């Protein structure tokens, strides 16, 4: 029983960060129809920002997460403004190539700047785990979980309650009608990409002390983000949040009860099964944002 509860706690912690990673990607796809292959690189970008600030400049971890989010926001806006705005988003092939190119550039830039050796970001928390009724949880992971939940709620409020969120949802549902009522669709796209990128960068920075920081980390993050988004239904924000927790649960219980070696493989196997049985996603009722 203890082991079962331990897996649940682990899945919740991991799932909250998967959810953060997934909603950023699904937001960008849902509103812009851009398949963002560079999403994982923005996650890596956040982790490296945290590394640079904490390990090299001596800033504290919390400040580094905040700054990584802000820089992610700016980088996302720059990518949309400098690259995506210049091409027609309807040309899916062209956009995909651009995003793949960006992914390669970003990954190699990390390699060039920081080298291939994995970096460790020190945690500001105590190393000893907290024990409650036989369940172990490190304070770092507890913080990551709390921060992720706060960010998920903030994101939900932006999308569902703010004027910007309303305009984003309207743009997704009918781009021409949004233009007709006076939405500046171009700036909605910039803000969407910026917000999605910010989520990825924050996730990377949050997790920097939990995992190691290496140039290849973006690859796996991208793959997982896509898996989460597919699980939840493309463009479905609550679906992506639930998909994040679902993928974490599959990985956690799979590695706990089947084999640790197949941890990632089990997650992707689940995606394959979902794509065959329910290609619209586990939680998709209708394709929608919000």
């Amino acid at each position, binding site marked *: 029983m203890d082991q079962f509860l331990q897996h649940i706690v682990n899945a919740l912690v991991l799932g909250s960060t998967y959810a953060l990673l997934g909603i950023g990607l699904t937001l960008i796809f849902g509103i812009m129809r851009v398949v963002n292959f560079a999403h994982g690189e923005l996650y890596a970008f956040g982790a490296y920002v945290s590394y640079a600030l904490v390990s090299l400049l001596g800033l504290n971890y919390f400040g580094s997460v905040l700054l990584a989010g802000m820089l992610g926001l700016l980088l996302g806006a720059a990518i949309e403004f400098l690259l995506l705005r210049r091409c027609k988003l309807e040309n899916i092939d062209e956009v995909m190539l651009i995003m793949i190119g960006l992914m390669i550039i970003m990954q190699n830039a990390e390699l060039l700047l920081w080298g291939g050796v994995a970096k460790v970001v020190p945690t500001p928390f105590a190393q000893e785990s907290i024990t409650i009724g036989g369940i172990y949880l490190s304070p770092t992971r507890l913080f990551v979980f709390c921060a992720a939940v706060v960010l998920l709620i903030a994101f939900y409020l932006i999308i569902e309650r703010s004027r910007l969120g*309303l*305009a984003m*949802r*309207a743009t997704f*549902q*009918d781009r*021409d*009608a*949004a*233009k*007709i*009522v*006076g*939405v*500046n669709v171009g700036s909605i796209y910039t803000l969407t990409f910026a917000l999605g990128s910010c989520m990825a960068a924050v996730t990377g920075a949050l997790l920097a002390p939990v995992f190691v920081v290496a140039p290849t980390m973006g690859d796996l993050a991208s793959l997982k983000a896509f898996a989460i988004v597919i699980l939840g239904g493309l463009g479905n924000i609550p679906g992506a949040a639930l998909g994040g927790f679902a993928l974490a649960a599959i990985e956690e219980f799979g590695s706990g009860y089947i084999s640790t070696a197949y941890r990632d493989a089990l997650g992707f196997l689940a995606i394959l099964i979902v794509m065959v049985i329910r290609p619209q996603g586990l939680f998709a009722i*209708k394709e*929608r*944002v*919000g």
Partner: protein
Amino acid sequence: MLKLEDVTVHYGATVAVDKVSLQVEEGEFVTLIGSNGAGKSSTLRAISGLEPVVSGRITFEGAPITNGKPQHIIERGIAHCPEGRRVFPHLSVRENLEMGAYRRKDRQAIRDDVERMFDRFPRLRERTAQPAGTLSGGEQQMLAIARALMSRPRLIMFDEPSLGLAPNFVEQVFELVTEIRAGGTTVLMVEQNAYAALELCDRSYLLETGNVVLQGSAQEMRENPDIRKAYLGG
């Protein structure tokens, strides 16, 4: 008030609107009639800034608005009620109305206007929180019109407002358009139903394959033998 001079719009490789000139005076009710694909919708879309104008000039109240951004066109006081209603299907009825006032900053006045729309369209009030996509076609058209009014336009453009509606709704929609005009808003309406259009409007333009082939007062148009034969069923 609104003036188009030799406006040309391309749709892919084809010419959708070919050097169209037309004029709408303040307080007037003008219709564009003609068959499917005559360039009526493209003309409205060009005015709204949704389609690029290849050549020609559009002016509104003397100011050039050719190839203006849609958000600036609506700020000048031109609202567009598009073909096929195009309400936001997953937004609630209230959110759809709020989106209509997207460029306005006067929050309190927007809230009052939403209430006014609900007074005017009691069926929408009953469905305030419902996603617009769950409304009937007629209700969606009411919502689309109400959304366009939310920007407090001085010129409102309707694109086939009666299309695909049940007969009793068609009548209601046309009554509504007449009311809006009577309230002092200038109306430019695209309508395939030439019979209804010429019953309601002051002046009309007949478009064929992107060209204005005939124009005149509603009465002149109704009495024109070519129009009678081709569009009014003899």
